[in-house]
């Protein structure tokens, strides 16, 4: 079991919220995606693949089988689900350094929320309410979200370049080629495994195998 797959980390945090305050949170969620600027901080933090907040009413938790005991919940719950690059610390810290106000806006109505600054109580709050990931599938384990975005930019730019250069002169070709590279100057990073973010024996061993080219035997040495 691990919260980590390749370069991505999966985080699930579930926190109780009083039923009569739930609508406030829903309103905030609605407004946040509509009103320009509210999510700028989140978007600027380039380590995030994906983040989603959902409210689960207390009577809407999955009940899969009649044999599953019925639970009697006192609160509604807010599920926060995110995939990001880097370590837990890097992510949680970036959030609190960069957008403490945004965090507080979303979590303020949750029971026992500590506020995002100071850091340690916030760390404790997240850890306490985090659900460990039991299974985590990652289609592109070597890619950070920036790598995916860059790859898409490189691809579309190349296709366009090919179209634009069918009939041009040599000088014009060079000019367009330089323009192509210039336009892609923030999209040309290499793609290899990250420095390991955990010292768990499992991750350290995998890294060693990658260096030795032995992960391939397990069908896992992407590109090597």
């Amino acid at each position: 079991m691990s919260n980590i797959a390749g370069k991505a980390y999966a985080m699930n945090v579930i926190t109780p919220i009083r039923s009569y305050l739930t609508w406030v949170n829903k309103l905030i969620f609605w407004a946040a995606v509509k009103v320009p600027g509210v999510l700028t901080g989140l978007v600027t933090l380039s380590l995030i693949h994906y983040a989603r907040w959902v409210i689960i009413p207390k009577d809407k938790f999955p009940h899969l089988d009649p044999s599953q005991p019925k639970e009697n919940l006192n609160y509604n719950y807010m599920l926060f689900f995110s995939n990001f690059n880097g370590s837990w610390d890097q992510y949680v810290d970036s959030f609190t350094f960069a957008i403490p106000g945004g965090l507080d806006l979303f979590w303020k109505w949750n029971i026992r929320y500590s506020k995002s600054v100071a850091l340690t109580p916030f760390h404790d709050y997240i850890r306490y309410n985090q659900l460990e990931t039991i299974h985590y599938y990652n289609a592109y384990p070597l890619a950070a979200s920036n790598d995916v975005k860059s790859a898409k930019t490189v691809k579309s730019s190349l296709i366009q370049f090919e179209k634009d250069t069918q009939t041009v002169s040599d000088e014009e070709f060079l000019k367009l080629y330089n323009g192509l590279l210039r336009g892609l100057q923030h999209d040309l990073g290499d793609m290899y495994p990250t420095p390991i973010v955990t010292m768990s024996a499992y991750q350290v061993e995998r890294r060693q195998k990658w260096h030795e080219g032995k992960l391939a035997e397990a069908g896992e040495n992407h590109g090597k």
Partner: protein
Amino acid sequence: MTKKLDLLDIQGNVIRAYGRFGYPVARYVCLNVRDGAKGREFVGSISKKVTTAVEWGDGPGKMKQPDWTINISFTYQGLKDLGVPTSSLIGFSPEFVSGMKARRDILGDDGPSSPQHWDPIWQRNRETRENDVHILVSINALAGQGLDWLKTAEKNRDQAYKWFQGEVDKTKGGVVILDGHLGDNGEQFKYQDAKIVLDNGKPTSKEHFGYTDGISDPVFEGVPYDENRVKGRGKQIPGGKWAPLATGEFLLGHVDEAMEYPPSPEPVLLSRNGTYMVYRKLHENVATFDRYLEEQGSKFPGGKELLAAKFVGRWRDNGAPLVKAPDAESKAKYDAQFAAADEQGKDDLLSDFTYDDDMSGGKCPFSSHIRRINPRASLEMIHEEAGFTPLGAFLSLFLPPSWLGMFKKAGDKPGSLKVSKGAFNTPGALSDRRRLLRRGLPYGEVKDRTRDDGNHGIIIMMVNADINRQFEFVQQQWINYGNDFKAGNDKEIILGNHSLDDKFPSKAVLQVDPNSDQAPFLLSDIPRLVETRGGEYFFIPSITALHMIARGVVDPT
């Protein structure tokens, strides 16, 4: 600055980079404690002479600048063997407990930087009790006036060392000096010497690749003699202004940038005014550096010296920052201004800059040393695609998109990034918690620039309140990886643990102005320029804590 620190309680090396204050030579000595009681007695006698951070000069509350300084710090094993109780030991950070060698995968110390290539003293450390480094003592010596400036410094150092050796001898084997710092010809020394780099016998502020060093160093609250140095060294706040960083980023027992006390061992008296230090011996491959610079410099449009500046973010000759002097023409102007400026003016020219006008990296590349290690406010960056303006986005809630043509924007120029204004709580939010105080000096002499081997590099000592959050993060995420800089796995040019595998060579992109007609320069096949030769994590206690350790009265109950 309103806060005033208790300078008498803080060790001098935390606050001062001695090199800047006229101390051109240093000696670092590692000790092993064989007998706890004698060890404590030894700590007691050293602590009487330990150099504090108190102001130098005449007048109340100041003291005369000493001929030599002495400072002392401890590893986890050292504290344990000196009798610090478990209830205190468990409060130290996990990285400090594990030590640098155990953290090599995090630090990227692989290939020629891996522990089997470290100096014997660092290889033997943490293998058997007798060879563990317990204590690090550092001595810095003041230069004299006139022609004999260096000889005087060496005399001061020898005098200090002699006194120190006397104190070790008094322990009758209770504390021993460890051997195994490699010298010029493979011999093993009982100390690591370090010294500024000389040019024809004259002092310089260079390191062995030829760069001017020792300019930037964080300024934080409570240090009286740093008030004029805050521009470019503190934290960047809105409006291109600067403020000193919170003290707790560099000293335990003080509030940090997250408005809390950094995690510290108990009791408070043990940790307050103390901090952590990262000691690293870094070898510089000068021949490889020269060859690589020559080879790439002949292809680089701006020529060799500009390329050298692109590696670090500053010109080699006088340290002029690239964002102020991005090409030969602006450099000439800068130099003239620099020559005419007074002391404060010179310092501002060197230090007072931001990356706000260079968000795309056309002047100072994203993979250069100083931009990677202290990005200032430049991580608050964004590239906007074509789409609606904010007003258009709002109107699109009510109106069909086809009506809103005039509320569309073209998107940013390809290859450009800009400040994502107001995105973060403060412009430097992602940098302010990653800052490092730099101490230490170059070591060794380059005798033959056509060879990499030999004994020359930098002894770098980084001081921070949280090794994991500050030093290790920078080393791992910003030096050996590039995602935060939209550079994928591209590493920092000078320090990165560049690939040794021909199939996966290291490279970096040197950006250009997105409005120009140039192409970015692709720096290919970057070799390893710097290799780790050893190091360890230390705790620098306050003077109070030193006395407590010496008397064996550390007790959190």
